């Protein structure tokens, strides 16, 4: 897969050029410090290393700039006769051929590797994005499946406990507390009106005790259970008597 933006891997801005200038200065300083020991031997090695480092961190253009400036500095300061640019001899020609050859080869290889690395990072970023999209879609599928299962449970629940249901409540997230729509069940009329008001204010899933009218006109406490059903059509609470 050819990513054309792979060539844009390098950072940009003033900092890049400042750091490149610093690398050139450090290379010059190191070579100057070693000059009493090295003399005319390997005049461009420090600049070659500097250009390779700049290529690795800051890209092609700063690296080529460091390489060219390094060639000038190396030829002027470290190739005899020192400090003279007008005299061109065999040593100058050797440097002009070997230094760019080695440095350009190194820079080219590093540039290719950095482009490949950036390209791979971009493709990995796409893969990660797609994986996360897949996971979110998977979550939505799981939620839908759960809603379908809950709907089936509700459909089975309603006829099974038809005679024991006191009330059904549709839960709306946006509704105020107690303002949810409520439908009476078969035992609704038998429940004590105060208990109905209490349940309307805030019915919660779990066990409840409700006063139910008995045959003698008295009310007695009855154990009830409230169950939640999260269906595709919304959430419902069903309160029924436990027999």
């Amino acid at each position: 897969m050819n990513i054309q933006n792979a060539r844009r891997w390098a950072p940009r801005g003033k900092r890049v050029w400042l750091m490149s200038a610093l690398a050139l200065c450090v290379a010059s300083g190191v070579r100057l410090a070693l000059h009493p020991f090295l003399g005319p031997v390997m005049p461009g090695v420090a600049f070659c290393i500097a250009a390779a480092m700049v290529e690795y961190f800051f890209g092609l253009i700063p690296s080529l700039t460091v390489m060219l400036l390094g060639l000038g500095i190396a030829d002027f300061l470290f190739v005899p006769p020192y400090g003279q640019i007008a005299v061109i001899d065999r040593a100058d020609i050797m440097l002009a051929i070997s230094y760019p050859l080695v440095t350009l080869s190194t820079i080219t290889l590093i540039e290719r590797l950095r482009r490949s690395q950036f390209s791979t990072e971009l493709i990995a970023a796409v893969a990660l994005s797609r994986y996360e999209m897949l996971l979110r879609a998977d979550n939505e599928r799981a939620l839908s499946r759960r809603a379908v299962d809950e709907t089936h449970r509700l459909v089975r629940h309603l006829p099974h406990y038809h005679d024991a249901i006191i009330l059904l409540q549709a839960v709306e997230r946006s509704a105020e507390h107690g303002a949810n729509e409520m439908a009476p069940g078969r035992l609704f009329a038998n429940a004590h009106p105060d208990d109905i008001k209490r349940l309307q204010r805030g019915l919660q899933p779990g066990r409840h005790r409700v006063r139910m009218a008995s045959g003698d006109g008295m009310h007695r406490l009855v154990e009830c259970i409230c169950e939640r059903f999260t269906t595709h059509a919304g959430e419902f609470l069903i309160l029924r008597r436990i027999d």
Partner: protein
Amino acid sequence: MTKETPALNASTFYPGSDHAVLMLHGLSSSPLEMRHLARYLNSEGLTTCAPNLHGYSAGTPELRMEAWVAAAVREFDALSARYPRVSVCGLSMGATLALALVHERPTAQAIVLLSVTLDYDGWAMPWYRFLLGWAYYTPLRHRWRYHEEAPFGLRNEALRAKIGRAMQRNDLSEVGPSSISLPALHEASRLAASVKKSLAALKNDCLLIHAIDDETSSPRNAQFVAANVGSTVLRTIYLDDSYHMITSDNEREIVARETAVFLKESEAASSAEGGAKPVVSKALARRLRQMAAIGK
């Protein structure tokens, strides 16, 4: 003399729920490039508004970037007066403008940045791009224009051919203008420079969608925003089958769907009832735990 038709740069408004989305198009372009996304978001229940901004959009006199931000703020305030939740969505330089707008109006619900452009550094940008900053201070300022060329921000070749024909007929097409003036580019650079400084102050939920082979703004733009924005909720999506105009290109359906999902999740997460979708997928739960661990 421009050949564009007035209908091409008219504002669009699709009424929906109490969550409105202000959609900002690219530089010197028109609301037309947001049309597909606006319609999709509206079909998902959101109110969408893609305005024509005076001084920024095609067909209006070119003004300084402060006027662009002021025009966007006016549109945002008008929506805020009518809708309790307003999110901002921008494409290309519109995304940069959206960042500037949200800096001015931090009450925005969420911000969606599509092909955000802080630097024109994509692979199709001309080599002399860096000279244009200086060319602005020369007589070229009023003479030279940047002319759009193939691929027109499109990887889809059939659509690219259609846009190429449209650009020969008009100054404006559904993926942008055929040319951009130097002063507009200069103001865009100023806007981007100001936005770069204010990214850390942005705390709104943020969605970034960028094509890795964007020929106008490289993915470095999205990476820069992702690394510097102060949002606690940040989602980044990279695409591999589109160029710059991701709202019109091969993956426009993915862009539209992910934008709608993100805006709805942002709304649900911030609502008093805590209506965020529960995580039931074990794989997603694991991934979210990994991301939370990385964020620590």
